[in-house]
Every structure is written in structure tokens, then in C-alpha cells.
């Protein structure tokens, strides 16, 4: 066995040195695998970006409260009394100004897209002064927080990039109302970055909400007290509430779209993979045909069948690695960080997000490329091992 392994090394090294003479057909496999990799990265970087915007931005120690029986914010309604009951719960974290919670209103407003000028349904949220403190990764990019009771608004980084006129210091006209933009904020790519924020009491007046809210976000003292907090509120006879963690709620929002992207991505990757296997099969059969004489000579000199098989597979998988690296680089440069927005079918509003090419995605791409070229190399490798020696030597 030891000699068989050292033979395999020898034959493989010899073969790879000869690869340059067959570069044209090898290049086809490399480009084919690179194509698969680029498409794979393109589709799944959308998935990753969307996942960052929705699932991962929700924190487990922020509670999200809706009216009992409502599945999302659009259908929910809460009273001032209910927000007081929530604020009185001992599990809610406290700051100098009182409980760390933000009663909120959610509406969609039309703002034109920067790229196309077409009106997009952009989420606008009425928030309490504590809103930045109930978002895990909140930070200011420019400007400052809005002053309660005024028509000042602050804008998420994603919204500012995608929609026209959302620049610091500018005035935004929505219907008959004018809003002054005083700040731009970031939330680590989270869903809040798609939103415009105004003071919740001002929005109650403008959008005829009386003194009602649609949701409450509350920061808990720790993630561990969520169970107690939920039990307390759902058994309190004074209120009818549905209590979730922010993470649960955001994951529910993105469920439909994530399922589409995932299934489309898997289907496209599998189909392209099958195409690439055929390309690899052609290349490797051609390679074996070109090496007929060389292989026969080696066999006649006493080399076994195993080293020949290894050398063919090694060649195929080397081409796979080359293709994966090439495709990975192109895919990373082309897609990583591309800012875009799409429609969230639950809230009927735009979610902005950036494509994300993660190390994990590149790693899986490489493994997939190796698997494809391995499959494409097996049959030609077996043929190479079975080549008749005498006939092969006679070949041109």
C-alpha cells in the first residue's frame, strides 16, 4: 500500500506537470465551475443579506408586544393603558427616565426610489424617545435623535441610500405634512435601517391613531426573564396581549421570502451543478484520451491502476479548486455589499438590505465545486485504469 501511495504521488505530479499541454479543455471546466460558483454566491448572498436584515437583527432580550390574536404589526392595536401595564412589569429594564420601552406605530408611506423614481412603499415608524435603546446595534451615522413633539424625523441608513430626498437637513413632504430630517442611523444592517422614524405622539395626530399604538418594544433586564415577563402579561386580566421576542417576530416576517430565495437558490445551484458535471466529464474523458499512451507506458513499467485513478481524480479536483477560487473572487467582488431593497409581503413595505458573501458561503461553494468535479472525474478515472496496455502503447 505504501508503494502504491508513493506511486500515486509520482503519477499525479507527472500528470499535473503535463496539464499545461491540455489547457484549453481544462479551462472549460475551470470556467464552468466558476460559473456555478458565481451563481451560487449571487443567490445565497441575497439570502444571507436578508437573513442579517431580519432574523439576526432581532435580539432575544427585547420583547415585542402586539394585541392578542394579531399576527403582525399592521393588524395590531394597543391602548395607552396597556403600554402602562407593560412598563410596570418588573422584568423591564429601567433607566433614569423610567422603563426602557418604545410604544410604536407603523405605517407605509410612498417615497420615490433614488434609482428609478418610482414610488416605493417605505415603512415609517412612530417611536418613543427610548427607541434607540431597544435596538441592539443602534448607532448614529450623522445628526442626532429627533426632539419629541416636533415634526423632526430620523432615517435609517438603508432607506437614506435607496430612497430619494432622504438626506440630512432636507425636508420630506408626505401628503400635506412636512418632516425635517435631523439624523441618520445604522443598526448593523438590521431591518430598522429601512425605516423612517418620527415621534409617536406626532404621528398619532397626523395618521389619526388617537392615543393608540400598534406595538411595544421593551428591553428586558436579561433574556432569562422573558418567560416570566410573558406569563405575567398574558395572564393579566386587564390586558389582552401577545408577547414575543423581537427575534421571533422578525423571523416570522421574513419566513415567506426566505423560503422562496432558499428554494430558488437550491434549485438553480443543483441544475447548474448537473450542467457543470457534464462539462467536467467531457474534459476528463478528453484528458484520459490524450494520456492513453502515457498511462499505458506507466502501466507497462509496473505502475498499478490505483495511482492512475488518483492522478485523474486529482486533476479533476484541482480544476474544481481553480474554478471555485476564480468564481469565488468574481462573486465576492461583484456581490458583496451591494445595497438593494425588496418588498416584504407581510408588512407590504420595503426592506433594504446588503448582499453578504460570508466565509461560510465561500467554504460551502468550494466543497460543492470539489464534489462536482469528483463526480465528473470518477468515470473517466475508471476508464483510465481499465485501458488495455498493449493497445494503448500502439496508440498515436
Amino acid at each position, binding site marked *: 500500500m505504501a508503494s502504491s501511495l508513493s506511486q500515486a504521488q509520482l503519477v499525479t505530479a507527472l500528470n499535473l506537470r503535463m496539464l499545461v499541454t491540455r489547457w484549453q479543455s481544462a479551462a472549460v471546466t475551470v*470556467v*464552468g465551475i466558476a460559473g456555478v460558483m458565481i451563481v451560487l454566491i449571487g443567490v445565497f448572498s441575497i439570502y444571507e443579506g436578508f437573513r442579517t436584515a431580519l432574523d439576526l437583527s432581532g435580539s432575544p432580550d427585547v420583547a415585542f408586544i402586539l394585541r392578542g390574536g394579531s399576527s403582525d404589526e399592521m393588524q395590531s*392595536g394597543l391602548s395607552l393603558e396597556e403600554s402602562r401595564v407593560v412598563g410596570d412589569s418588573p422584568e423591564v429594564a429601567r433607566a433614569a427616565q423610567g422603563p426602557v420601552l418604545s410604544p410604536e406605530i407603523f405605517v407605509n408611506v410612498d417615497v420615490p426610489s433614488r434609482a428609478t423614481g418610482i414610488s416605493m412603499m417605505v415603512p415609517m415608524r412612530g417611536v418613543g424617545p427610548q427607541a434607540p435603546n431597544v435596538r441592539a446595534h443602534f448607532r448614529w451615522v450623522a445628526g442626532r435623535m429627533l426632539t419629541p413633539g416636533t415634526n423632526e424625523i430620523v432615517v435609517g441608513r438603508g432607506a437614506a441610500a435607496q430612497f430619494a430626498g432622504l438626506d440630512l437637513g432636507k425636508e420630506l413632504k408626505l401628503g400635506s405634512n412636512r418632516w425635517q430630517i435631523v439624523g441618520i442611523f445604522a443598526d448593523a444592517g438590521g431591518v430598522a435601517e429601512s425605516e423612517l422614524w418620527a415621534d409617536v405622539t406626532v404621528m398619532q395626530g397626523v395618521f389619526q391613531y388617537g392615543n393608540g399604538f400598534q406595538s411595544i418594544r421593551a428591553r428586558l433586564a436579561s433574556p432569562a426573564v422573558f418567560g416570566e415577563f410573558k406569563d405575567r402579561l398574558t395572564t393579566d386580566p386587564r390586558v389582552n396581549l401577545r408577547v414575543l421576542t423581537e427575534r421571533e417576530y422578525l423571523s416570522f416576517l421574513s419566513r415567506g421570502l426566505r423560503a422562496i430565495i432558499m428554494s*430558488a437558490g437550491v434549485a438553480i445551484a443543483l441544475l447548474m451543478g448537473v450542467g457543470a458535471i457534464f462539462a467536467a466529464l467531457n474534459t476528463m474523458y*478528453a484528458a484520459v484520451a490524450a494520456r492513453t499512451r502515457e498511462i499505458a507506458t506507466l502501466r507497462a513499467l509496473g505502475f498499478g491502476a490505483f495511482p492512475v485513478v488518483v492522478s485523474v481524480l486529482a486533476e479533476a479536483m484541482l480544476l474544481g479548486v481553480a474554478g471555485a477560487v476564480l468564481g469565488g473572487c468574481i462573486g465576492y467582488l461583484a456581490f458583496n455589499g451591494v445595497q438593494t*431593497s425588496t*418588498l416584504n409581503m407581510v408588512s407590504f413595505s420595503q426592506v433594504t438590505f446588503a448582499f453578504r458573501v460570508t466565509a461560510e458561503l465561500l467554504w460551502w461553494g468550494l466543497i460543492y465545486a470539489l464534489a462536482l468535479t469528483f463526480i465528473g472525474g470518477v468515470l473517466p478515472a475508471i476508464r483510465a485504469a481499465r485501458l488495455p496496455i498493449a493497445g494503448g502503447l500502439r496508440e498515436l
Partner: protein
Amino acid sequence: MLRFLPLLWASLRRRSLRSVFTLMSIVVAFLLYGVLEALRFGFFGGVEAAGDNRLMTTHRMSIVRELPGSYLGKVHSIPGIRQVSAQVWFGGWFRDERNQLQVIAADPETLLEVYPEIHLADTEKRAWIADRTGVIVGKNLAGQFGWRVGDQIPLQQSIPYKSDGNTWAVTVRGIYVQDGADNRGMYMQYKYLDETRVWGRGRIGWMVPLLETPTDAARISREIDALFANSPAETKTASEKTWVGDFAKQVGNIGLMLSAVAFAVFFTMLLVAANTMAQSVRERTNEIGVLKTLGFTNGTVTWLVLLESLALTVVGGTLGLALALVLTQAMKPLLNSFVPLFQIPGYAVALGFGLMILLGLVAGALPAARAMRLDVVEALRSG
């Protein structure tokens, strides 16, 4: 032409395994092309089905904000408007929250007048109008749940419209077929919703005005919006086509992304096919020399190589498109709630055949040129 067929067949069978693999990769490419086109049509196909002579009037802020019911009469009295259908989104689900329904509440008579493409038997139409709790159901939705005329169905609804629970009992009064639509919708009576709900009474979601002549669309849109300017609920009116198109664009650059994927696939397949052809011609240098010696002209030899490449792409492409048709039909029930119009449109099939020919010609071009320029003496000596 036909007499060359055996020669063509022989050259494809010369390395039959290679021909089969190339053919299969072309099959896969066109299968993917077909599915991507179906997906694109699913997202943007609604634009073609939208009526020319209908407008869409929504709340200026957003379609999810309701309008006062009094707007209906005001819009109807504008000259040039034949009829207006007021609609409210009901949504809801059947049995399980995952079976989300597209239920819209509307007045039956004006609805059917504004949408002449909704076909409903006269007896069913009369039965629906007569029953306040009646609904009409799209053919495909009825098929999915096995609903028949006369069936009682409980709709569930998370918007707390009612004081007593969230179940709405409705009776199927008709099953409709709407041209150019997915036929998975349901219409209930606006009266039933409005009389039952405890809040928001008298309000409507949006209006669909039907015009006397489509050419008036821009002028009448401006007139409607001017009517409600500076009121608490300003409106935004556009032709239904524009509205559906803009709504599709909300989804983002999906069309562009799908085209990019299709392009990547094509480029890859082009390379694979071109490489196979080049290899095959290189190996047959000697044979082509013999053909030329036997009196085949340069033109004929070129054509033979091109035909070989075309045969691969057209046969592979046709198989791929056929598979895509079967696959999209099979996938349709799974994707219905997200991409209702999931099917390969006719123009995409036509374009597909165009692409097969283009692919075959481009892939065969270089090898064909090589075969044409091949010097007989050189070629024979290389054997």
C-alpha cells in the same frame, strides 16, 4: 441537405459519450432558462393582464390606508367614468394560518361590470347578489380545497373586525374564471363585511374606476386626485397597468438578477459546446481532408460542422424546454401563493428557439472556419 444526415449522425456517434454529455449540458441550460423565464413571468406577467381602461385610486400615503366611503359617489359623478368598484382587502385564511387566502370585499354588481373578464354563470351571479354572506371563488382555489357551489366555509381573520370571535361563515355561490389571472382569489360582499365590522364602518380600501375610453386615463386620474387634494385622505390614481407594473417593481431588481443568472448559464454552456466542437473537428482533421479530396467543397464542409453543432443545441434545447414545461407545471401548486402566474410564456419559448440557433452557430463558428481553411495536403499528412 438530407443526404448529409447519415454523415452528421456518424460524426456525432464518433465519440457518442462526448456527444451525449454535451447534449445533456445543453438540456440542463435550457431547462434552467425555462424555469427562470417562468419565474420572471410570475413576477411581472400581471402587467400584461391589467386592463387599459381601468384606473386604480388608492390613499396617497399607501394602499393599506382606507378611504372614506363617500369618495365613491364623488368619483362616479366625474364625466368619462362609467362605473367604479370599491374594494376592501379582507385576506384571512382557511382552517390553518398557512392557507392564506386573497379575499377581497366588493359590491357584486359593480365588480362584475368593472371586470368583464370575470366569467360567472348567470344563475350563480344572481345567487351571489341575493346572498349577503355569499362568496364567489376562483376556479383554482375551489379546486384546491374541493369547494362546490352551496358549500359553507368558515373563514378565519386576524383583523379583529368582529366583537364575537374571528370566524366568518360564508357560502360559495359561484365559481368564476378570470382571463389572464391565477384564479385563486375570492370575493365576498362588501355589505356583509361593513355591516358586521365594529370599527372602520363605511370606509373603503381602494377604488377601481372604469373609463368610457382608455385615452382619458391621464386626464381623469388628475381630476380624481384634484378632487380630494388637501383633504385628510388625499388619493393617488394611476392606470391599472401602471399600478400593477409599479407594484411588481417593489419586489426589486429580480428581473435583472434572473437575467444575470441566465446569462451566466448561457456563457458557460456556450464554452462547453464550443469546446466540444473544437475538439471534435481537431480530431477529425484527417477525415475532413479525405472529404475534401473526395470533392466536398469548402462551403459544404463548413456547413457540415455547423450542422453538427446546431443539431446538438437544437435537440438539447428542445428537450430542455420540454422538461422545463413539465417541471413548471409540477411546481405550480407549490409556488402559487408567492408567484401566482408561474408559467413559461409563449414569447420565451420562441426566444428559446432563437437562442438555440444562435448558440449552435456561435459554438460551431470557429471549428467551421478551421475546417474550411484546412489544407488538404496538410490534413492528409497529419493522419
